[in-house]
């Protein structure tokens, strides 16, 4: 029996993507938990940016939204939102943002993401929040995607492309007029997936302690390469201690 919950392991895996000193745009939900964890443990010098216009926030507590006052603590600047749009462009020119973190409801093998609806857009079976800032983050920076691992969420074809990943493959983004950045990893409660450098298709990179590769395959709605998969490191004591206080 593990000493951590699957949500905690997700947050840990997410926090591991944030190296100390990196600059990251963080979306709402689990990314906020992972980023707050990294900032308070392994990556105190990470620069966290939010689509609400909060630049370099220092959350001591886990915020509920990207506009939460917890994020403004010791921030460098609180920009009006239109400047955030400009900053995406400015920082892409200068290659200043290392990663963006996104959540989603559905994903396809090329990392295209749906956070809008299940079913027909005009007559949805399930409606979600909508893009928020996700579309712009996916458009401009390399991303890490965080989501639940279920067959109906990992599907060959998604119902709505809220945020473009690698499009339809190797030259998918250039065909759409998008810069050559895109999804780097997908983190779920079962493991970490990455994208092949040549085909841009998703593959299993790590499975979490206590999870089997078969379990992951069973919960994935498309064929996924698992030949490169390794078992992930368990979370450290320090990190578990922080998580226990949340």
């Amino acid at each position, binding site marked *: 029996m593990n000493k951590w919950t699957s949500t905690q392991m997700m947050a840990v895996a997410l926090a591991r993507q944030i190296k100390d000193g990196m600059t990251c745009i963080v979306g*709402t*939900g689990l990314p906020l938990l992972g980023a707050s964890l990294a900032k*308070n443990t392994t990556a105190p010098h990470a620069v966290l940016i939010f*689509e*609400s*216009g*909060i630049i370099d926030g220092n959350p*001591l*507590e*886990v*915020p*509920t*939204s*990207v*506009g*939460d*006052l*917890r994020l*403004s*603590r010791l921030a460098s600047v*609180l920009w*009006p*939102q*239109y400047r*955030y*749009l400009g900053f*995406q462009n400015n920082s892409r020119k200068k290659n200043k943002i290392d990663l963006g973190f996104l959540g989603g409801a559905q994903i396809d093998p090329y990392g295209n993401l749906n956070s*809008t*609806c299940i079913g027909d*857009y*005009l*007559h*949805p*079976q*399930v*409606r*979600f*929040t*909508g*893009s*928020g*800032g*996700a*579309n*712009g983050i996916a*458009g401009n920076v390399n991303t890490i995607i965080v989501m639940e691992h279920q067959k109906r969420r990992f599907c060959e074809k998604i119902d*709505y*492309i*809220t*945020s*473009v990943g690698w*499009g339809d493959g190797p030259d998918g*983004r250039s065909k*759409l*007029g*998008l810069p050559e950045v895109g999804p780097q990893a997908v983190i779920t409660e079962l493991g970490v997936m990455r994208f092949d450098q040549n085909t841009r298709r998703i593959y299993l990179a790590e499975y979490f302690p206590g999870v089997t590769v078969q379990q992951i395959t069973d919960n994935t709605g498309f064929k996924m390469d698992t030949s490169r998969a390794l078992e992930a490191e368990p979370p450290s004591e320090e990190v578990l*201690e*922080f998580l226990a*206080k*949340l």
Partner: protein
Amino acid sequence: MIKSEDKIMTMSEAISKFVHDGDCLALGGFVTNRRPYAAVREIIRQKIKDLYIEGGPAGGDVDMLIGAGCVKVLINSYTANSGYSQVCRRFRHAVEHGSILWEDYSLDVQAIMYHAAALGLPYVPVKNMLGSSLISQWGISRDIRVRDSKLPDHKLIIADNPFDPQDKVCLLPTPRIDTAIIHVQQACTDGTCRIAGNVFCDPDIAMGADNCIITCEELVSDDELRREPWLNQLPGLVPDAVVHVPFGAHPSQCAGFYDYDEPFFITYDQASKSDQTFKDFLFEWVYNLKNHAEYLSKLGEIGLNNLRITPGYDYVFGLRGVDCHE
């Protein structure tokens, strides 16, 4: 000369004067931060109908307007009480049952559209949304748009960049907003406003709208805000009404004053699950209360004091977990 005495109004007066059936409203704030809830409750109380709703990422305020039957069209980028209702439930119900019209843009694109409105630009070109369903899927068809004078004929237009024909751009229509409502920390009688914390899109929607209602935590003397004018966001020339409503953003948070009301958001999440429980909620928290003063006394002094920010922080310290290093 700004005649300041004309601007100070009760909420009931301001809403009656500047919000009418079929108007396009833009609301300020961000999800669970500084949303103009007191104004929203008065709009519901006055049973105003067929509204077109614009504004930044919305929360329970827009959800309440939808659930109370006030909304005809929602221009959406995000609607949630994040952390409490991951998708606002009345919004979700209305979209799934087709009882409102809606359109989706991304949040950053909406921000630039409101900035365009503030600057008086006829439209704005962006590189955002290309290749996504936000471009190809229209919530409101061309047919409906052409017949509706409140809406632009196109959600967007993809065009060649005239300066570089190899380059595709997305042209966005500038929103036409009848009335903006924003909640600020301080306003003075002439309408000068000071927002603490993030301003979000608020100065832009205030400037972009034909009319602007300011609701404020504190009504202060004109002198007080003029001592440090660099901290102010709007001159008195922009607002048309100023309404003094302490805790006017409740249950959302308001920098320098109070945090969000976590138990209230949980109650709202439960209440918004069904038509009947939501109706009961509206009677309890809106219709059965004559005005904001009655709302505050129902919340009670102790309840409100618990929401006040901890000195040295801009939120209630410890509400969302405590850092082990401090």
